[in-house]
């Protein structure tokens, strides 16, 4: 079956033409570009795009996998709410295997912890409404793409009076993290391939400070192979012209101003805060916590159980992978003590983690 607006953006002949166009624009040394988003990382690995561009472009993978950058203290707090406070947990499926300090939701589930996997945060509200004698805690992890959905669930619970519903949030915002990477002289990024759906919500104008302040070209691109190749080509054209601006390849969905309704909802339910990124550290203003007017839906407040952030010390180099400083193969644990079946670091856990994508599709 032909999938409209998906298969159209996967045509091999056009991909070949775009690769030629990119190679034609490339200079002597490979251009260092970063795909910020984990969904791009997987699409690039699955599409075999890195080897196609070898020598012309080096694609670094960024910190844009929400599961990977969620600190272990968050997992520990979630487990504690379930095991010590008797909460019924509801989570996106990819959080289950993320290691906390000594355990994971999946391991605890094997020992009796109740965790329900949901597709939508609204499903967790429905679950709470159906089980009024239980406290249901939704593990609200995500970036700006998911923040409106988490906020929408909180508002829905407020309107319906579902008082046994709350959210343990781990919500982060991308432009602040890009600013940190742009300012890091060790990373040396010459262009950002900006996320598709984060940009749909926040608008492509959100990257203008990064482009202007650091002189780094930014192109928002969709997640299909032709989108990615076109986005890379647009970044190379900017470099060739010696400009650094924000361009939008994903114009079929993303706009300059973004989704105002989603932004209003985020502003209503959340307030910006400083937050810790696993392996990276605390980035000022890069988190969203639940606003005081919705405090009764904030699991940290409701149960008096704050998430504690600490930088973990180990041989795991996920932090350097998330910042594009090293490739997964340069980590001493990669493929040895850390494999998808028995992940050590968060980048190997999520299917969108850089290490998992490299492991599955070949370390190229």
């Amino acid at each position, binding site marked *: 079956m032909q999938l*409209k*607006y*998906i298969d*159209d*953006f996967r*045509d091999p*002949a*056009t991909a*070949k*033409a*775009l690769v*030629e*166009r990119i190679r034609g624009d490339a200079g002597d040394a490979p251009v260092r570009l970063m795909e910020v*988003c*984990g*969904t791009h990382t997987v699409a690039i690995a699955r599409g075999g795009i890195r080897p196609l561009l070898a020598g012309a472009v080096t694609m670094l993978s960024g910190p*844009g*996998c*929400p*599961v990977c950058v969620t600190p272990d203290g968050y997992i520990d707090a979630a487990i504690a709410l379930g095991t010590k406070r008797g909460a019924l947990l509801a989570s*996106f499926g*990819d959080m289950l295997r993320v290691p906390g300090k000594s355990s994971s939701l999946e391991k605890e589930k094997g020992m009796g912890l109740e965790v329900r996997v949901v*597709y*939508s*945060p*609204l*499903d967790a509200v429905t679950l709470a409404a159906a089980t009024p004698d239980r406290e249901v805690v939704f593990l609200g*992890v*995500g*970036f700006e*793409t*998911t923040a*409106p*959905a988490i906020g*929408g669930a909180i508002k829905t619970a407020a309107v319906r009076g579902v008082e046994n519903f709350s959210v343990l949030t781990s919500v982060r915002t991308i432009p602040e993290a890009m600013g940190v990477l742009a300012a890091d002289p060790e990373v040396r990024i010459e262009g950002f391939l900006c*996320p*598709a*759906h*984060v940009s*749909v*919500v926040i608008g492509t104008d959100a990257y203008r400070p990064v482009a202007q302040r650091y002189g780094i070209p930014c192109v928002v691109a969709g*997640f299909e192979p*032709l989108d990615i190749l*076109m986005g890379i080509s647009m970044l190379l054209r900017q470099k060739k012209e010696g400009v650094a601006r924000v361009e939008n*390849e994903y*114009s*079929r*969905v*993303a706009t300059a101003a973004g*989704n105002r*309704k*989603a932004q209003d*909802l985020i502003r209503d339910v959340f307030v910006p805060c400083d937050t810790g990124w696993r392996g990276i550290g605390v980035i000022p203003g890069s988190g969203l916590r639940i606003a005081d007017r919705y405090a009764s839906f904030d699991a940290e407040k409701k149960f008096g159980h704050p998430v504690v952030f600490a930088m973990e010390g180990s041989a795991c180099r996920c932090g350097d992978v998330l910042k594009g400083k090293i490739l997964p193969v340069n980590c001493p644990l990669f493929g040895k003590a850390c494999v998808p079946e028995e992940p050590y670091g968060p980048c190997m856990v*999520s299917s*969108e983690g850089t290490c998992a994508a490299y492991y599955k599709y070949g370390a190229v």
Partner: protein
Amino acid sequence: MCLGVPAKILETGDGAAVVELGGVRREISVMLIDDVSVGEWVIVHAGFAIEKLSEEEAEQTLALFREIADAT
């Protein structure tokens, strides 16, 4: 995790709509977008339509791709 899937609106109702996702009919929330109509395309993420898809913009991007493919 930020994956979003293009889906066509089949039915609309009070803050919700029915779409077809991978051959399965599913109800989604449309509280994040304005006035959606049957036949329009949206991007669905975590049970919410996060934006409409502009068929006109999609055609323009595809036309540009054809131009590049024809030029090589």
